[in-house]
């Protein structure tokens, strides 16, 4: 058996990593086809404010981050409905989240090290509590997506078509950004705030190079994401690399591989 599995923190890392590798590209594919990929990074920066708040209020930072990101996502969707360009809304919330986090950091005493671990992810500090929060979030989000897959697909395809069929698109848009917020918060624990968008988007971009339909693209993206996370964990353990960075670099290699495959065939 691999030596890596003798350590409990690595077992926790693999459990959390596998669930996130399934969840992240599912939400990521919808973000890409809706031309809203920047949402993941924006929410990740907002979630930092939640992490700092969690340390200040002495509540689990992951839960505080989920709450803050969720509220920000709802706020973003409400502002976007007022016909402010999608991208501009993202800048508003990204800057706002980061500003709140830096101001709150001033009041923190003694947790800097742990807070900074959220920037790049720290698999070694993942607790069983984090594992359970992640599992519940992932199962919840994936259940909602699979139950209402066709509605999410239709809204992503064309909002007018969906609305003409009686789909209440505002509700579904709110639900979608809320799920994206949950996903960002839990993915952040593994790869860190700075790389969260990468795990959600890069496997999708790599899968899109193969030119298959929506469902197959989603499955390929999950495969690439699983491979990146598992290989990244092995590399980070045996070669002592930063886990988040290793995972994203492997996903990037998959993207360039599939890109070259597409353009050479």
């Amino acid at each position: 058996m691999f030596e890596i599995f003798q350590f409990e923190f690595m077992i926790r890392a693999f459990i959390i990593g596998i669930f996130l590798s399934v969840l992240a590209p599912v939400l990521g594919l919808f973000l890409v086809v809706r031309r809203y990929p920047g949402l993941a990074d924006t929410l990740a920066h907002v979630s930092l404010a939640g992490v700092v708040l969690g340390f200040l209020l002495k509540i689990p930072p992951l839960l505080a981050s989920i709450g803050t990101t969720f509220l920000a996502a709802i706020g973003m969707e409400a502002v976007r409905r007022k016909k402010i360009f999608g991208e501009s809304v993202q800048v508003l919330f990204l800057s706002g989240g980061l500003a709140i986090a830096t101001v709150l950091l001033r009041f923190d005493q003694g947790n800097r090290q742990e807070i900074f671990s959220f920037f790049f992810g720290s698999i070694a500090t993942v607790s069983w509590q984090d594992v359970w929060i992640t599992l519940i979030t992932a199962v919840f989000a994936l259940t909602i997506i699979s139950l209402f897959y066709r509605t999410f697909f239709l809204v992503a395809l064309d909002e007018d078509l969906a609305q003409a069929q009686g789909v209440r698109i505002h509700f579904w848009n709110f639900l979608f950004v809320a799920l994206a917020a949950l996903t960002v918060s839990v993915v952040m624990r593994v790869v860190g705030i700075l790389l969260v968008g990468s795990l959600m988007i890069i496997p999708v971009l790599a899968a899109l190079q193969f030119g298959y339909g929506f469902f197959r693209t989603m499955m390929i993206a999950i495969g690439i994401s699983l491979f990146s996370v598992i290989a990244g964990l092995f590399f980070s353990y045996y070669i002592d690399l930063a886990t988040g960075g290793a995972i994203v670099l492997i996903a990037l290699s998959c993207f360039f591989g599939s890109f070259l495959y597409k353009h050479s065939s």
Partner: protein
Amino acid sequence: MSAKIRNKPCINFENVSFGYRDGDVLQNVNLSLFPGEYVGIVGPNGGGKTTLLKLLLGILPLQKGSMFVDPAMRIGYVPQRLSQSVFDFPATVEEVLVNSLPRGDHRKAVDCALQITDTMKYKKRLISQLSGGERQRVFIARALVLSPRILVLDEPATGVDTPSQDVFYRMIDRLHALSGMTILFVSHDLEIVARETTRCLYVNRTVTSYSCPADILQHHHHV
């Protein structure tokens, strides 16, 4: 036209007005449409054609007046311009049709809609790989798979080459004759409307109905 037209309206607008920030687009529109009609809608750009359809489809909220749409008459819609994301959306034709339906196995309905629109050969292809005309027919199939009794086509032949347009109009004509569904068809092309439809509506803030579509050529040849 062989489709039988019944007397009770399936769509009724009474004194409907609708405006955006810069003023009313539609004013006091009164309109009745009957089951089985093939109605052409013409009018100048900005005259309110698409707004009229969007009110009917519930995409825009009713601001003034009252509107009745027979709840038994399901509406299929093919928009004028599909959103930009549709053009490179990574989905097969089959996925677009299947995911437009509620959960369940709808293989027969999907195949039937593809056969009617002669798009069965594109079933496994990505919608991004289709030409404008092929994609438009696929989106008609998407509307048909919902088993509509009213089919709303908003400038369906825009950007489609002339031979494909002819194929398209023959297909709609056949569909109307066979199914007897109500068809609302917005177009800029008065000659097409005069030739194809059984009634014509001229929309320019208000709606004028022409029971003989050919009359529209004499009254509004400038459109």
